[in-house]
């Protein structure tokens, strides 16, 4: 059993923590209130190589692993979740499908720009009528000569509507399987392709400095070679993308949970009530002890899932457990931290109010907590 991070992972963690403290923390509240996308911060993160963390150097990546990405996400989310989800979606949903399933040409064309953070990729899976339920996919792509013709609508797509969005990988029905179920494939659609437009921009409860848009495809034509991976393998491919993504979201949730501890510790040492620092009251001490306990155990869960994945072992169940326990920790810690701050927790003056608003989506995005439980139960052999 190995204890602690490697020296390189630890230095990366420290570097990102420093960046988040010095560059994100002072400005993010303003972006959040204006619901503006922080292009400047994303460019800086790009220069640090964060968008290329798990990708090979030949395509502009940093030659690191998925765990390095998770550490970066955790440290960013400790300060702010909007920039963390922008990185998570850019790497794990935008670039990863191309890296993992794309052709050499697709990799060479897209990965260098995505790895540098100059361009963002998005992943179009969820639709108005369904997310994790892939059989509900209504978007279609039919072959006409050498072109795919795509029609349909995608919902809640992170990073899809920014000025630097370069592409969306879309899950679409491309036919019918022998058993009558829809055949799903993934197709790469560059931004600016005629017939591909942005629908509504959502007014969200949280993650307000990140981009989430609706996508509309109306006879959108792309070359046949824009198929990502194999025709009909789309379902298996995006399950893989989602399994990994759960570990990344768990890391992000742990960051938020830890950020709640950081802020509460600071405030408990300053604020006085009934003639003493509130941190000397057992009511506050126990709350913060519980918060730390949740953050720590959730971190162990995602470390475990990530190490299994990197070792090439099955990790589906552990990823679902990590996502479930970490999003619970984030939600519970955000509620408790806001309580520690009292009335100030309900203002936008302190980060905990932002944490409170950002926590809820973690129980929903990349598979709801109910879906995680379903996956865990099935992995234990219970009937589908």
């Amino acid at each position, binding site marked *: 059993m190995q204890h602690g991070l490697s020296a*390189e992972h630890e*230095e990366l963690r420290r*570097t990102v923590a420093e960046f988040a403290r010095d560059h994100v923390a002072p400005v993010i509240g303003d972006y959040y209130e204006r619901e503006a996308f922080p292009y400047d911060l994303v460019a800086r993160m790009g*220069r*640090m*190589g964060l968008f290329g963390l798990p990708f090979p150097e030949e395509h502009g990546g*940093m030659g*690191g692993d998925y765990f390095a990405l998770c550490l970066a996400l955790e440290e960013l989310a400790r300060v702010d979740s909007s920039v963390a989800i922008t990185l998570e979606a850019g790497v794990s949903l935008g670039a990863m499908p191309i890296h993992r399933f794309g052709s050499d040409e697709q990799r060479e064309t897209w990965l260098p720009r995505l790895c540098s953070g100059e361009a963002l990729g998005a992943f179009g899976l969820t639709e108005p009528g369904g997310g994790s339920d892939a059989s509900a996919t209504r978007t279609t792509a039919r072959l006409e000569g050498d072109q795919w013709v795509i029609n349909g609508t995608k919902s809640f797509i992170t990073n899809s509507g920014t000025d630097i969005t370069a592409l969306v990988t879309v899950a679409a029905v491309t036919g019918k399987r022998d058993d009558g179920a829809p055949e799903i494939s993934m197709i790469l659609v560059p931004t600016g392709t005629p017939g591909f437009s942005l629908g509504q921009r959502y007014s969200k409860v949280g993650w307000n400095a990140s981009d989430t848009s609706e996508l509309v495809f109306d006879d959108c034509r792309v070359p046949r070679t824009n198929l990502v991976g194999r025709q009909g393998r789309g379902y298996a491919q995006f399950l893989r993308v989602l399994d990994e993504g759960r570990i990344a979201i768990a890391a992000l949730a742990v960051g938020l949970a830890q950020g709640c501890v950081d802020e509460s510790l600071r405030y408990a040492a300053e604020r006085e009530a009934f003639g003493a620092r509130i941190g000397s009251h057992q009511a506050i001490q126990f709350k913060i002890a519980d918060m730390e306990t949740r953050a720590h155990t959730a971190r162990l869960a995602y470390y475990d899932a990530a190490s299994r994945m990197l070792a090439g072992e099955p990790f589906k169940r552990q990823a679902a457990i990590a996502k479930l326990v970490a999003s619970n920790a984030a939600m519970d810690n955000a509620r408790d931290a806001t309580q520690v701050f009292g009335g100030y927790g309900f203002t936008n003056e302190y980060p905990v109010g932002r944490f409170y608003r950002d926590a809820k989506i973690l129980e929903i995005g990349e598979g709801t907590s109910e879906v995680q439980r379903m996956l865990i139960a099935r992995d234990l052999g219970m009937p589908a």
Partner: protein
Amino acid sequence: MNIVVLVKQVPDTATERKLTSDDKTLDRAASDGVINELDEYAIEEGLLLKEKHGGEVTILTMGPEQATDSIRKALSMGADKAVHVSDEALHGSDALQSAYALSRALGRIEFDLVVLGSESTDARTGVMGAALAEYLGVPQLTLADKVDVDGQAIKVQRLTDYGYDVVEAELPAVVSVVEKINEPRYPSFKLIMQAKKKPVEKLTIADAEIDAARVGLANATTETVDVAPAPPRAAGTIVKDEGEGGVKIAEFLAEKKFV
């Protein structure tokens, strides 16, 4: 161009700093060591000059074993190699002795330019650039907020109370930089991974041919007679804006000679 950047490890200003009670030197084990902030600007300037003119950036550090962490960070930012002068005999050396010791180490390295931060956040003497240039017998260009190199000529903007002077010299030279000069980069993971393979040469005072009689607390040219904690900061002046707040602030700044 061969550039040497001096990097000093200092206690993190974000943590509580302590002096050892017996010899009034800094208790370096008591707090986390970090790269002296101004030295990060020096590293960045060294890297920028290398990117423009080619060559190598060598980190030179004098300090105890744990300074290795700061050397690794400097290498992770993109420096090529490092020299670490570490010896018990150097403990308690003052600024002049340190400049002497560093000049000896520099005697072993081929350099065109030495870059350093204009002061450290621990001792804050701000004399290293000048003292080192004297020992090396090369020009000093201190408090630079802009550096241009053209062939063997170096030109800097030297920050003054009133603006800046333009100072020129021939290489080799010593340049100390201020924080306005650039924005230090963050190490990328690729460079972090590469840093562990970069060479770090360790030197004792014997290796660097540093005369033991000219370094260390016992031979220091200055003596710390007494130390006291900084007094708590006095309460500030609150200007209440009743329509002429701006004027009052301007008057205050003028009175303190800030404007």
